[in-house]
């Protein structure tokens, strides 16, 4: 292999992005929409005004919290798909405090956020114990718990927490002003939550790079059996990673009800957990890339909601753009692997030609 990277190798990381854009452009053309108009609408939806940028940041907060948590569970070798349910249980726990408890101003919001973290952590531990004690793979335990959390939300909204004027099935009554996070400049963004998300990410980064525990987690993720032989108690580390991830996800759920919305709604998370999984996959589990990718996702999704309002095209277009990008990076991101496969195929073809 040559020491100097070829031109192709240098532009390689850009190709998945271009291909993803090409695919969404094709979809837009098929749907009869001018792609340039559509991308312009998306750009304006994300960055067109300061209000839009605040909205992108507000959406980013729970996404970054969840993605930070997932860095821990992925490091331990766990597929915490249950993160969606952990966000929802955090939202429910925060809503419970907001609806049922009245405290002095300095205590109310901290208690709500703590409850949110506890709610997420409990739901994560449930998936963790199902795995360590029950032998149920975390993907399936997590998915079942996600759906149970969604059903629990619907039950609360339609039943015990329905607004006094009757159940609308859409949400609870708005919480009192004392229970809500202070918002920045009439937006949905709470600066406190943004600071918490940045802190959480920094904390996770420190844990993973500069702590003994991070090292043990890594050993566990890479090879559970040898970690066991080295005396790393796998169950305790796994459960701790799950609980921490669940707490961060739950905090994100709390932020959703206390600032993005002002009440518990039917699809309170709306897939942020799954999105966070995609963020971490696209970032390739790398610390530095995770917040950047999360910001990018948040911008694309906010943009595609504006696109839907303007053109009636389904906002899933944003999910398609990011989804294709993640898929292509997963498949073809590693240049040398792709090169090897292509070279081998060419070799085989040449052999076949000379034989025939």
């Amino acid at each position, binding site marked *: 292999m040559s020491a100097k990277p070829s031109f192709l190798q240098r532009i390689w990381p850009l190709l998945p992005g271009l291909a993803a854009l090409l695919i969404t452009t094709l*979809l837009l053309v098929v749907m009869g929409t001018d792609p340039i108009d559509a991308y312009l609408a998306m750009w304006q939806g994300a960055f067109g005004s300061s209000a839009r940028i605040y909205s992108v940041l507000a959406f980013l907060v729970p996404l970054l919290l969840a993605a930070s948590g997932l860095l821990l569970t992925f490091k331990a070798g766990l597929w915490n798909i249950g993160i969606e349910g952990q966000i929802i249980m955090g939202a429910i726990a925060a809503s419970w405090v907001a609806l049922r408890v009245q405290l002095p101003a300095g205590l109310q919001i901290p208690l709500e956020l703590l409850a949110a973290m506890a709610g997420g952590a409990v739901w994560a531990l449930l998936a963790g114990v199902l795995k360590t*004690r*029950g032998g149920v793979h975390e993907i399936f335990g997590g998915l079942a718990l996600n*759906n*149970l959390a969604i059903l629990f939300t619907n039950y609360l909204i339609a039943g015990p927490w329905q607004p006094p004027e009757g159940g609308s099935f859409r949400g609870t009554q708005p919480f009192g002003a004392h229970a809500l996070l202070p918002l920045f400049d009439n937006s949905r963004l709470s600066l406190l939550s943004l600071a918490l998300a940045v802190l959480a990410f920094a904390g996770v980064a420190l844990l993973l790079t500069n702590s003994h525990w991070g090292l043990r987690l890594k050993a566990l993720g890479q090879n559970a059996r040898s970690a066991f032989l080295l005396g790393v108690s796998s169950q305790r580390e796994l459960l701790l990673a799950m609980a921490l991830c669940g707490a961060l996800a739950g905090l994100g759920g709390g932020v959703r009800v206390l600032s993005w919305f002002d009440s518990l709604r039917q699809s309170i998370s709306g897939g942020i957990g799954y999105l966070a999984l995609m963020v971490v996959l696209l970032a390739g589990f790398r610390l530095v890339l995770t917040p950047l990718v999360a910001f990018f996702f948040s911008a694309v999704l906010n943009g595609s909601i504006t696109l839907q309002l303007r053109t009636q095209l389904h906002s899933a277009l944003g999910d398609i753009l990011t989804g294709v990008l993640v898929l292509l990076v997963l498949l073809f991101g590693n240049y040398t692997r792709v090169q090897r*496969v292509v070279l081998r195929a060419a070799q085989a073809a040449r052999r076949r030609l000379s034989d025939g």
Partner: protein
Amino acid sequence: MDSTQLIAILGSIVLQAAPLIIAVCGETISERAGVINLSMDGSLLLSALAGFVAALLTGSLLLGFLAAAAVGALFAAIVAFGSLHLRQNQVAIGFVLAMLGDSLSAFLGQSYTRLPGPSVPSWHIPLLKDIPVLGPIFFRQDAVVYFALLLVLVTWWFLFRTRAGLELRSAGERPEAAFSRGVAVRKLRYLYAILGGALVGMAGAAYSLSVKIGWAEGHTRGMGWIALAIVIFGGWSPVRGAIGALLFGATKALATLLQRSFPQVALVAFNAIPWLLMIVVLLLVSGKLAAPLLARAPAALRRPLRSLLQAAPPAALGQPLDES
């Protein structure tokens, strides 16, 4: 409830379970050969849409099923290529495809929502339909049900009674040994992953053209994950998997019945049943809980219980093999 009502309910359980049975057989074939296709939830959604739209536009049910099978096969081919050639994680690729299939079906299906469309006609099998009890339950259905039932038998026979099935299983259990005995492991894995994916696609069309006719956003959402859990519950055997799918259908039917009799109990309690069941069932077959339970069972029951609950995945499931 009289017996005709009961028979009608049992018949509807069989119908409801049919697409699940087809999907479970497909995924069982793929996993037995060593490839986990985790994309099933998205692949079912997109193939349900593709099947419905193709049948609507061409007026041909057959083309509908073929289009759906093509979508399922394409998803499986991507998973297979990513893991067998590019050496990437099967679970990650499958998960991303599951999400992508969901978004694609929501985006592309927007203008086909709640349209009336073609459906598979019911066709009663002569002679068999007159068998008491079994006739009305199994043989007064449509072609989708007969295909599902036949598929279970054919898959079981192929996997466990033919030479090709033995090679398939060896690719999933002992790929190195199989390879050294001249089995083209990678080729077989491609073949069976894609075949299994095509069956998953047909299961999608079975929903949109027979069991849950038409299209709406999220039409089959969740069923793919349930089917994946049933494959585990089925211990990677098509027959046990089919029983699992029927049990799942039965609990759903039971929930609907109970809800009618106890309207004061919240709807969510009944909707929660399948997911609670998923956890309980996976706990039972995991072995960690089953072993102490079995130890306490009466000696005469221990063996049949163990064979009922035992489920070990193919040893090389999800692992690539270097053939060069």
